[in-house]
């Protein structure tokens, strides 16, 4: 599969080497994306089952408390790790990085292939936990010990063990992929592609990957230690406890140690999901507003600043955990400081729209919806980061609403926007516009209707992770009506995702043919000689980059975009 000078490239011929055991980053990206979407569908169904119980308590006999907690846990874990992380890094990262930096492939293609297959094993182990005795773990996606490994929590046997094993496998996969992405960005950029000419998508994914590489070890360590606590009876995290009347052999461990390690991973994880979204949305807005991204340099520095700050804010998840209360001052301050670069990104997105020539295409709709959704999610983060305001709101529906808006729905909107945007490059065909708009409106309005009112249940004090709320006097009956409303909307939004899936499947074969550059974009992935790009991406010659990624509507240019690899006039003698 190595290319030799002069004789072009030899793409692998058989079906198996081409689509299954492929080392081509584009095929691996599609494999990652399809797998993540499939497991994400499981997560979606689980969330609707939870909503059924909350909207119509007790109506569905098969959703008992045990199952409810299993649904909550698996929904969270699947969405955060196996869908969003895998999709942004393994899917978008794999597809976009080599194309956007002008490389022929990732620098370690074999490792890249391995990364996908290991990820698939992690997913299969996760799925397997649904079928073992006792079912999957119901410990909440945070898996806090001691509860996660004690009876009294569903799936405290095989369920939690498989969960931890699956996470360990996933981390191995993410590390293999991550080494590739980082090294490719650092080493395989084509001639002229300086770091400050990289599209923001690459910057976002690059920084997120660095965070993933440095943060996942914390999850790895805590998962290994909890696994040993569970299987060998060590006491890393387990104090002496009397569990449901039984004295256990544990002694002296600290549940808080787990929380520190978990959130040292868990908070950067938020940015592992958010930074690629930031990057991609910047490119979508710039392209479809036909205007350069406003303040590119500040945008890059903001990504770097957010990445760096994100590793010193973790304990804001632990304000009421019982840790030394004096740490509250430090972590509240760092957390609110991180709002400054984040706010700057929001300002620059909306300023990019200003005096643009805004094409309200489907990707653009999703991108703008993201800005609105992310703004509210970010703002509610200021409640929870400010330690004393967090105290009454912690572990209520306010938190649920906050993190769903900021790191659930907002990144998913970007995923949709990105898929509508790059689908023509991946398949050579456009996604259906009408279906796309329908999908957009139901998803955008629906998620607002679900999550905005939910904040108010949190103000009221409704705790999260409750199977039922009967007989609580401070919760008025009207709260139940609101829950019914939210459930109905959630079901509609859930079903509406079928539109999207249908659109993907149908358009891949029957969609309108797209040209090589349907959106008139400047970045390199739109300048490939073939659409979809073939193995090796660039045919005979890799592109040479002459300018930054955002030459839209440059005064004096004939078109309203100038591709990064277009040779400036007067320099062309050599060709």
């Amino acid at each position: 599969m190595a290319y030799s000078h002069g004789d072009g490239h030899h793409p692998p011929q058989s079906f198996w080497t081409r689509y299954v055991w492929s080392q081509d980053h584009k095929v691996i990206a599609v494999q990652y994306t399809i797998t993540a979407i499939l497991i994400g569908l499981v997560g979606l169904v689980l969330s609707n089952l939870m909503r059924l119980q909350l909207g119509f308590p007790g109506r569905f006999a098969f959703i008992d408390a045990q199952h409810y907690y299993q649904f909550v846990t698996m929904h969270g874990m699947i969405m955060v790790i196996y869908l969003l992380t895998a999709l942004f890094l393994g899917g978008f990262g794999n597809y976009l990085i080599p194309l956007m930096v002008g490389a022929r492939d990732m620098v370690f293609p074999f490792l890249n292939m391995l990364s996908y297959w290991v990820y698939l094993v992690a997913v299969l182990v996760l799925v397997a936990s649904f079928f073992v005795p006792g079912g999957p773990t119901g410990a909440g996606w945070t898996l806090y010990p001691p509860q996660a490994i004690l009876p009294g929590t569903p799936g405290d046997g095989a369920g939690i063990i498989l969960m931890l094993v699956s996470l360990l496998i996933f981390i191995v996969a993410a590390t293999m992929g991550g080494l590739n992405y980082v090294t490719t960005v650092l080493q395989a950029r084509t001639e002229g592609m300086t770091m400050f000419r990289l599209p923001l998508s690459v910057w976002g994914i690059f920084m997120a990957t660095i965070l993933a590489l440095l943060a996942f070890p914390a999850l790895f360590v805590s998962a290994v230690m909890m696994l040993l606590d569970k299987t060998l009876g060590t006491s890393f995290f387990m104090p002496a406890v009397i569990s449901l009347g039984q004295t256990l052999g544990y002694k002296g461990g600290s549940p808080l140690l787990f929380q520190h390690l978990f959130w040292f991973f868990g908070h950067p994880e938020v940015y592992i999901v958010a930074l690629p979204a930031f990057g991609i949305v910047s490119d979508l807005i710039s392209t479809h507003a036909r205007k350069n991204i406003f303040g590119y340099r500040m945008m890059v520095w903001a990504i770097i600043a957010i990445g760096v700050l994100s590793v010193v804010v973790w304990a804001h998840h632990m304000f009421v955990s019982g840790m030394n209360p004096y740490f509250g001052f430090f972590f509240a301050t760092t957390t609110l400081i991180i709002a400054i670069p984040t706010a700057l990104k929001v300002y620059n997105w909306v300023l990019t729209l200003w005096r643009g020539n805004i094409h309200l295409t489907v990707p653009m709709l999703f991108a703008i919806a993201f800005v609105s959704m992310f703004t509210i999610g970010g703002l509610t983060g200021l409640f929870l980061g400010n330690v004393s305001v967090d105290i009454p709101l912690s572990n209520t529906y306010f938190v649920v609403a906050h993190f769903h808006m900021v790191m659930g729905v907002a990144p998913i909107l970007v995923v949709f926007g990105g898929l509508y945007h790059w689908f023509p490059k991946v398949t050579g065909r456009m996604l259906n516009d009408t279906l796309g708009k329908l999908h957009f409106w139901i998803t955008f309005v629906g998620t607002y209707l679900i999550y905005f009112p939910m904040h108010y249940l949190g103000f009221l004090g409704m705790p999260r992770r409750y199977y039922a709320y009967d007989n609580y006097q401070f919760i008025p009956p009207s709260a139940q009506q609101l829950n019914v409303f939210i459930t109905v909307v959630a079901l509609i939004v859930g079903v509406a995702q079928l539109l999207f899936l249908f659109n993907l499947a149908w358009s891949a074969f029957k969609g309108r043919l797209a040209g090589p550059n349907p959106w008139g974009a400047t970045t390199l992935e739109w300048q490939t000689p073939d659409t979809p790009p073939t193995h090796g991406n660039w045919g005979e010659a890799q592109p040479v980059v002459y300018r930054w990624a955002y030459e839209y509507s440059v005064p004096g240019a004939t078109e309203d975009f100038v591709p990064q690899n277009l040779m400036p006039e007067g320099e062309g003698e050599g060709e």
Partner: protein
Amino acid sequence: MALAIALVIIVVAAVLFHVLSPWWMTPLASNWGQIDTTLSITIVITGLVFVVINLFIAYAVVRYRRRVGRRADYQPENKKLEGWLMGLTTVGIVAMLAPGLLVYAKLINPPEDALVLEVVGQQWQWSFRFAGRDGQLGSSGIDFINADNPLGLNPTDTRGQDDVLVQGNEVHLPLGRPVKVLLRSKDVLHDFYVQPFRARMNLVPGMVTHFWFTPTKTGRYEILCAQLCGVGHYNMRGMVVVEDEAAFQKWLNSQPTFRETMTKTAATGGEALVKQGATLAQSQGCFACHSVDGSTRVGPSWKGLYGKTETFADGTTAQVDDAYLHQFIRNPTARVPKGYPPIMPKFDLSDQQLAALVAYIESLGQGKGKDAVAQQ
């Protein structure tokens, strides 16, 4: 265009919702009004940003929508504008953070003379302890916990002998006196959450955590567990009753001291046996899963249990009688009643204690059981 309208509607609807929503913080019942103030400041600032950004987007989308022949401006950056925006943001952040940290400084410094209340959590119920006349709590430890000493007080510690134990999920507090709450857990993480008090804290096994507040309004307030603690998490309830000092003292004096609970003699039969069973059920935490009023919790209710015919997951049935109950409690997971998770633990009970417990269950169920037999 539709997008701009949608964004404007979202802004208007959000503001209206905020004003008209019937769902809001429960009325404050503690001294932590400053938390509410900080929250209000945060709502105003963030609300303003939310409105401005969304309206700005809506305006831009309409004003700069695609027109044939139009070109967007080319403006890579504007350092001055970015500087101003960052500066303004910083001011907003400080305006929220400063009052927040000021309250927090008070929040973590309980007054010296505060009344000390110990809260002990276990799946899925609360217990409480106050210091006795000596004003000191005795030491405690997981190793001391047994059927007679459910809170695990050190029996040899003289300071603990007069400690007042509150079994059951209801605790009383005097109005207007600062309370320092010490929290510990026997098994997993819990969280002592009384929304009207605002302040709260996790219970962590292996350590003692704390927080403080001053109740400022009489009334009954629900205690919730707000840290996922297993399948019965949503049912881990309790009640705080805030009342005037005199009523509180009266209530406190009616609660047993540690010494009293330890010197109880074992009952032998009849009424006394049932009563011992009831106390035992309370101290062993049976009520976390079994109600006595017929409502279903994690396990079946004890009301009407005795004498009924139980169906098992494997389809077999059995009559609930003395022998069955003895067998079941000794080995609870051997047969699993249909519709309930197989999570009942084995309890370390003496034969006499077991007899008392069964007698208690029988006392709750016989009437109904007899009816059932009569119907057959």
